[in-house]
């Protein structure tokens, strides 16, 4: 399909249905525009903006799949406009481009993603161990390999948009961090030098249990991060250690390892609550992670 479409693209007309509207309502508007070789969806949207609809709102920055600005839903599939080649779409039919439907609309293709920033501020930042004079941080590559996969995230929030927990159930936005932030929590949780135990926090305040591992976040991630397999499920397993596994509990009692940090204590290390963070440091609550506290 794709090669044929590409060779005759010069003579073809594209039918683009772009969402136009704001919070007072909207609809798809159809634009017909000649096809050109080698374009991505964002190119076509830009040509429409230049030639037919100068007031069309569309957010973009890098056109290289690295800034995470141009997230949208193309023929109903959440994707980056700048990374979706026209040659992969069937141009015999109209192509719909709608804004991400999981977030509030600002205008046309632009959504308000501030939900994600609100969650980010509630996540306790990296808590380094206390170092002695002259001591330096040392990490082995194998210990940070796992976290580095999650560092590829470009914060396009396509995963947050597609996740049915909040997409289809708006009320869960209060209690659910979403896949991108489970990856962040997992990254910190697996970090060899981080001293804060975020397991109960992940489960009790960020709603890890709401995720039913149906993997849509993984399906849409433009960076190919295995969010479900490498972040969410490993985090769920760690939560089982902390909350649900009687043998793990017994093991802690026998070996004298500390109990999992209560969610409220871990939450007090969030940037959002810097004052509480300083108070917690003064109380010596840093360093309670069972795996790193002895180090």
């Amino acid at each position: 399909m794709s090669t044929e479409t590409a060779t005759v693209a010069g003579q073809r007309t594209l039918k683009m249905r772009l969402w136009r509207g704001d919070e007072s309502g909207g609809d798809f508007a159809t634009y017909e525009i000649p096809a050109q070789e080698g374009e991505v969806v964002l190119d076509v949207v830009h040509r429409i903006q230049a030639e037919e609809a100068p007031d069309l709102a569309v957010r973009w920055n890098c056109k290289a799949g690295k800034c995470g600005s141009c997230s949208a839903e193309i023929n109903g599939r959440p994707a980056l406009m700048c990374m979706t080649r026209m040659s992969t779409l069937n141009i015999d039919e109209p192509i719909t481009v709608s804004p991400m439907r999981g977030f509030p609309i600002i205008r046309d293709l632009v959504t308000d993603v501030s939900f994600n920033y609100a969650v980010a501020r509630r996540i306790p930042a990296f808590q380094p161990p206390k170092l002695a004079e002259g001591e330096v941080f040392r990490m082995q590559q194998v210990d940070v390999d796992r976290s580095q996969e999650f560092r590829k995230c470009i914060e396009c929030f396509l995963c947050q948009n597609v996740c049915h927990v909040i997409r289809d159930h708006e009320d869960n936005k209060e209690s659910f961090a979403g896949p991108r932030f489970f990856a962040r929590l997992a990254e910190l949780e697996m970090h060899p030098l981080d001293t804060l135990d975020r397991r109960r926090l992940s489960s009790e305040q960020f709603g890890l249990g709401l995720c039913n591992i149906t993997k849509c976040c993984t399906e849409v991630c433009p960076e190919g991060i295995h969010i479900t397999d490498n972040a969410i499920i490993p985090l769920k397993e760690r939560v089982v250690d902390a909350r649900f596994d009687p043998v793990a509990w017994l093991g802690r009692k026998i070996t004298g390892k500390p109990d999992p940090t209560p969610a409220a204590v871990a939450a007090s290390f969030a940037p959002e609550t810097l004052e509480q963070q300083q108070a917690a440091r003064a109380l010596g609550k840093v360093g309670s992670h069972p795996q790193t506290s002895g180090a």
Partner: protein
Amino acid sequence: MTVVDPAKPNMSVTAVQIGKVRGGPPLSKVLRRDRWWIQPALIVTGLTLFAIYATWAAFRNGHYYAGSLGRDYLSPFYSPCLAHICSTKGGYSGWGPILGSWWAISPALLILIFPLGFRMTCYYYRKSYYRSFWLSPPACAVPDAGSAKPNGRRKRYTGETRFPLLIQNIHRYFWYAAVAFAGILTWDAIAAFRFGNSIGMGLGTLIFVINAALIWAYTLGCHSCRHLCGGGTNRLSEHASRYWIWKNIASKLNEKHQLFAWLSLVWIAFTDFYIYMLTSGIIHHDPRFF
């Protein structure tokens, strides 16, 4: 991450706002053009067929041991041997049938609790039945069943946070049992080389060996296994052997967990069916290779 001036604790926190107007057509309007319903339809078909077969096989309570034909083949649905039918099974001499001859219920019903529990709580099967049977969601960017209607059936979505789905968290205990079962099925595969007093190999032997291999590939690719054998530590560098197992066995097989979930499911049913065909006379002869 936001940089916060320690002198001025962050005052500009963006509150999560609930219920603002979203863009695009309502979620109930599915914009996907591809045939997204094929995958859930295949999974419903596959799992339903297996459930029907397994129910029949479990209640059959007979035709599961080929001892009378000179073959030490015991159906995996009825292994380990608990009843008199398979008491000549050489591999188990010593611990013989546990259930007396008075026992009337099919031993498969006792045995299958463990593999069934393992698969029901498996992260992969959870994904597949949440999507295909629960329709939660049926496919990505397709709304959850009920959620799209203003008075949808499912008022509130609670995922795995409440009973009964909270029970999914015991998956690792089923994994421990599954390792024992994989061991038993391996033993059955070895026993399948026993031809009377000599060693041989028949088509059945091959089927049993493949069965054991697929069960191991599925069991060792389990997410709980991946966690227990190394994934749960933050300093893999300090545990050379756990790191090796985590990296080269558990994580590698985990990438193919879906594949092995299906292959092992189909093959175990086929293994049972082969024994049934052999012992009920549908096929008269198990070809012997040597």
